[in-house]
């Protein structure tokens, strides 16, 4: 996979305030990259630089191999940008809105009706073709904006907080759309402070805090790096003390704790280091000793934990 978005020592200062500081990032083609950070971390400034709207104080950025500073037109051709606000013309019909932006991307007039039909079908707004934009719900407007970003079939979508302010259903719909677009071969670079959204769909993440990139990479690798231990929950019908003896004599078990019993069943939480082999060895040891295990579950390592471990709570 080749790198499609790249920044090198990108810095943006507004007077005394440094919004983005020496930011270096790489996004591979086809990735869904979640750009995560608290409010005021520098996500929007970075995205505005990548979309040619803002001049960096120093550093460089490239989109699909084109310099953001030197080849803005080529960059604009390669990206579809959705800012963190709706940006819709209220006094237009839904099809007119898409027709206008398609024309702004030099799409010939004869090709536009079919394109608009396809785009509206993709974002599930075909039934609102003739409606005025201001009659759409918030979620529908967001989907319309997403359709707009696709008018010129860009390689990359840069989306600033695409699910912000949406109700749970609309958020899920947007998330599903992003996955669908990724399947169509688009690289998606989106910012969010809703970690559940990022965890659900991203292949890669970058965590930014106070303008600096704290950590970035493949989401699974990051989990391994930032949360080296794994947590296993087991439920037993009996033989608690025998089970504890087994655990005390095993490698890779860093600690274990007895949890309150439920329905006369004993429960243990075990912290374990190592890979899948270590988990497999633990399960085998319990079964070989004939211990009455009725449940063996690994706790999912969520993004919130990664985020909390990576960031310090600094806001620039």
């Amino acid at each position, binding site marked *: 996979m080749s790198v499609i978005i790249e920044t090198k020592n990108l810095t943006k200062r507004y007077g005394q305030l440094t919004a983005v500081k020496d930011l270096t990032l790489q996004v591979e083609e086809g990735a869904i990259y979640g750009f995560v950070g608290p409010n005021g971390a520098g996500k929007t400034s970075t995205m*505005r630089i990548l*979309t*040619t*709207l*803002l*001049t960096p104080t120093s550093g460089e950025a490239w989109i699909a191999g084109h310099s953001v500073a030197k080849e*803005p*037109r080529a960059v*604009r*051709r390669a*990206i579809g*940008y959705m*800012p963190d*606000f*709706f*940006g*819709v*013309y*209220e*006094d*237009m019909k839904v099809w*007119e809105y898409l027709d*206008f*932006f398609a*024309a*702004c*991307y*030099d799409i010939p007039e004869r090709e536009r009706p079919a394109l608009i039909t396809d785009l509206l079908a993709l974002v599930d707004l075909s039934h609102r073709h003739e409606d005025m934009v201001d009659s759409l719900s918030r979620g529908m407007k967001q989907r319309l904006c997403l359709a*707009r970003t696709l008018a*010129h079939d860009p390689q990359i979508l840069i989306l600033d907080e695409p699910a912000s302010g949406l109700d749970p259903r609309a958020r899920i719909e947007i998330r599903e759309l992003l996955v669908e677009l990724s399947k169509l071969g688009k690289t998606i670079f989106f910012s969010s402070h809703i970690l559940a959204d990022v965890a659900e769909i991203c292949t890669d993440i970058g965590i930014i805090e106070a303008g600096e990139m704290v950590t970035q990479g493949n989401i699974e690798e990051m989990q391994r790096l930032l949360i080296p231990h794994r947590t296993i929950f087991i439920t037993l019908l009996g033989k608690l003390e025998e089970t504890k003896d087994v655990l005390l004599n095993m490698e890779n078990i860093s600690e274990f704790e007895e949890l309150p019993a439920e329905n006369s069943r004993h429960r243990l939480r075990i912290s374990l280091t190592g890979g899948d082999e270590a988990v497999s060895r633990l399960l085998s040891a319990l079964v070989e000793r004939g211990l009455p295990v009725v449940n063996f579950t690994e706790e999912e390592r969520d993004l919130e934990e990664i985020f909390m471990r990576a960031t310090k709570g600094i806001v620039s």
Partner: protein
Amino acid sequence: MSEATHAPRRTLAERLRSNPVTLKELRGRMRGARAFVVLTLYVVLISGFTSLLYLTYSTSTGLVASSSGSVIGKIIFGGVLGFQLFLVTFIAPSFTAGSISGERERQTFDLLRTTLLPARSVVMGKLGSALSYILLLLIAAVPLQSLAFLMGGVVIEEVALSLIMLLVTAITFSTAGVFFSSLTRRTLVASVLTYSFALVATIGLPLLALIFIPVLEMSFYDINSPVLEAILIYAGGFLVTTNPILTVIFTEIVLQEENTILFFDVNLSSSSGSIPLVSPWIVYVLFYVILTVVMLASSVRLVKKPEK
């Protein structure tokens, strides 16, 4: 050879039609009743004004005799022209003062800037759509102006010059709106600046001319210098030509007295010599065209410029 090389050259009208911003603005402007209500009100107002002129004149003279037909024709022509000049001076800027700042306020400006649409297309599209509507208003007044032809007293030069003056004024004052709109983030500030510009151009500078030229003439009365007198005439003339209504009046005076719409000589009182002058409308057109080009180029630069 590239495709662009084979592409036929498009006329200005074709380029305006193919500009998505022009189409969007016109669609928005003509949607609903507002545009038609404005047009109707405009025609009613201008008709009322013309009727008032006719009635006032016919009442004061007692009857409209054939000998006075040419006079009333000229009055109606001048009245309608004055009304239209007022329209393009003070109403045209209102169509454009929110053109770019409105996009910023609606948060659609960034969307436009990330498309492939060049900044000049955004500026020309906004200007073109506003001018199209202004042109519609001007055309709507043509039947009233044509009343003057029925009565006589108006020559073809006056009609041609009035058309040129109206077009140049409409373009310049609309461009001023676009310029101030691209300069500021708020439509309110852009409107204040645009109307300040219109007031300075129509009232400020001529007022300056009316105040300072007599003062300067009196101050230098004893010097009796032909050079100074020539400078004062040129400076005063220039200040007068910054005002569309004064330009029309002085152009008419030159046409009546010197029988020309181009060049004429003025005798100096301080010497037996004379100095050459051009009809005020020429200076007006040149000055306003230059101003328009500067404001258009600045607007394009402001729209194109990424944020710092």
